[in-house]
């Protein structure tokens, strides 16, 4: 029998790593921490909800749609807000403020959608969960298998994309040195736009899976963003594999930490769960500001051995 706490941790960590990997990808290209990233996932929660409650389809079938909705939302942010600002010579602080403004817009759109759905179809759109649509496999809920599977597929696909395809290599060049990449004929703007498309898509996949396990609400993305940032920072903010590992680490630490602490000191600690990613993030910033991938592991092992 699989321990329930570990099962919770695996699901949450997988979903979180999809979010943090995408956040880091756009940070690497556009150099802006995207404060609206959580909302890309929230929007896809509602596509899953619509598919399930109105059309009676499984949320798993909503994954492609979730990907599309998330990626288009992210692409819209890049094309209609960030790119024009970049063209006007805005610095990254202005871009950050713009993502906060976009966050507000998305939150209002999501809430309007939620209220309208309740009004038109009489379905619960706040604090909803779609666990009943999940299947069961070896006594485990399907999401406990599907979420980690998708997370692993995601990271392998990203690796192949960035290292084995022409466009992926061009994207890495554009990240490394945008002006030089432009000189050798790479369409830097296109690679950045694609990075936003992928980033939003990954968040969208995570979002479309979330209702199968988490209690969903229009503000879930807004609340998750602290954990997502913590995961990306632990990963170093400039390395997508670091962000993936950071997501797993923060996810496990949050679920297992809260779980064991609530057994030891009492259930009153459960609401304070967001403190765990914050503490890990603060410690990372203080002692290894470049994150796990920024530490010179080889040097350390050489000295040790």
């Amino acid at each position, binding site marked *: 029998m699989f321990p329930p706490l570990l099962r919770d941790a695996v699901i949450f960590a997988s979903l979180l790593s999809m979010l943090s990997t995408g956040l880091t990808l756009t940070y690497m290209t556009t150099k802006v921490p995207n404060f609206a990233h959580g909302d890309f996932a929230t929007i896809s929660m509602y596509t899953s909800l619509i598919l399930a409650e109105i059309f009676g389809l499984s949320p798993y079938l909503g994954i492609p749609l979730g990907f599309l909705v998330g990626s288009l939302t992210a692409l819209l942010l890049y094309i209609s807000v960030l790119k024009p600002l970049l063209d006007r010579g805005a610095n990254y*602080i202005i871009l950050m403020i713009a993502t906060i403004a976009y966050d507000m817009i998305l939150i*209002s759109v999501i809430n*309007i959608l939620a209220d309208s759905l309740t009004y038109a179809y009489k379905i619960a759109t706040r604090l909803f969960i779609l666990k009943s649509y999940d299947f069961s496999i070896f006594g485990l809920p399907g999401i406990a298998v599907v979420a980690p599977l998708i997370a692993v597929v995601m990271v392998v696909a990203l690796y192949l994309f960035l290292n084995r395809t022409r466009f992926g290599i061009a994207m890495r060049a554009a990240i490394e040195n945008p002006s030089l990449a432009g000189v050798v004929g790479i369409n830097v703007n296109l690679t950045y736009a694609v990075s936003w498309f992928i980033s939003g898509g990954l968040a969208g996949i995570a979002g479309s899976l979330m209702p199968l396990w988490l209690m969903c609400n229009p503000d879930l993305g807004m609340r998750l963003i602290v954990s997502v940032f913590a995961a990306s920072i632990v990963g170093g903010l400039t390395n997508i594999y670091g962000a993936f590992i950071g997501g797993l680490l923060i996810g496990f630490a949050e679920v297992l930490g809260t779980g064991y602490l609530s057994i030891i000191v009492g259930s009153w600690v459960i*609401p*304070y769960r967001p403190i765990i990613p914050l503490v890990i*993030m603060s410690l990372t910033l203080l002692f290894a500001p470049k994150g796990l991938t920024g530490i010179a592991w080889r040097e350390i092992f050489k000295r040790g051995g």
Partner: protein
Amino acid sequence: MPLPIAAVFLIDLLAFIGIFAIIALSLNLEFGYMGIPNFGKLLAVAGGAFFVGAIPGRVLAYVFGVMNGLDYIRDNLKIVGSLNQILSSNPALSIAYLILSLIGAALAGAILGYIASYPAIRLREDYLAITLLAMAEILRTIGYNWPDLIGGTKGIPIPDPFRWISGEFRILVATIIILATLGAVLAYVELVSRSPLGRVLRAIRDNELSAETYGKDIVKFRMKTLMVGSAIAAIGGALYSFWTASVTAAGFHRVTHTFWPWVMVIVGGAANNFGALVGAGIFVTLRKIISFYKSYFEPYVPFDVVWLEYLFLGLALIIVLMYRPEGLIPEKPTRTLSPDNLQRIISKIRGGGGASKEG
């Protein structure tokens, strides 16, 4: 003699403008003059409010011996009731209580600003922004879930320092005190911005490297600015609590106390204190008008009209960033002495002897 309804409406409006202008000015000091993207403005505002909710009332209760083995949170109504009786018959005590609480809130805000920015103060500003945002969320979580602090989700009433003023004149006096505090804050930030310190802040904002080569300790200035800014914002939060005579954790949110001040500063004009003031004035007035006419829309739309307001604010902010990034009242060049004054000083130095030759 009751105040006319229009006067009450106006007083209410002025009080809210005053409180948000104080918060916007603190953000303008941090962001406008120094370029610190403080996405955790909520932290200091909530910190000031939570402080006056948690500490001064308990101190008063001990000093006047009304605790009698009661629990400050569970028996709050009883304790605050008897404290209000004491305060209402003693204006001097009320004013001392108000001033000491505001000083305490400012200190609490400064300490919170120090702790929250410590992990990321040496890193690039985006790390600092993320850290401050996260810290603010944590303070809100604590306020919401720890009932012993300020009553958790339900909130608590706090001893009212304006109880000695009868009837509706209470809010008049409270509003005057808020506006007086705003005046003091405005005078302070305006002085800072014109002082050598203000020029150092702008120099760091415009080019960290060159400021550093002139021997300016960027981390120290950043830390000090954040502490002062947080102290001012905490006073804003504390004044709001005294104005409503209560504190509720749910009343403090990322949208209302981080996002709104940002809209005010950006729309009004960053690095210009009067811009922040105008921004706060326009913003609060517009919201008041919108909420006044909201009920006319409500029957026609299938959702809560408040979301349209958020949508409008987000769009407005992006449009301002794109088409008028300097805001309504742009930053002014640093004020220097007028040519006449300069001439007079130069001639004085020349007249005084060889001092001018050394320059």
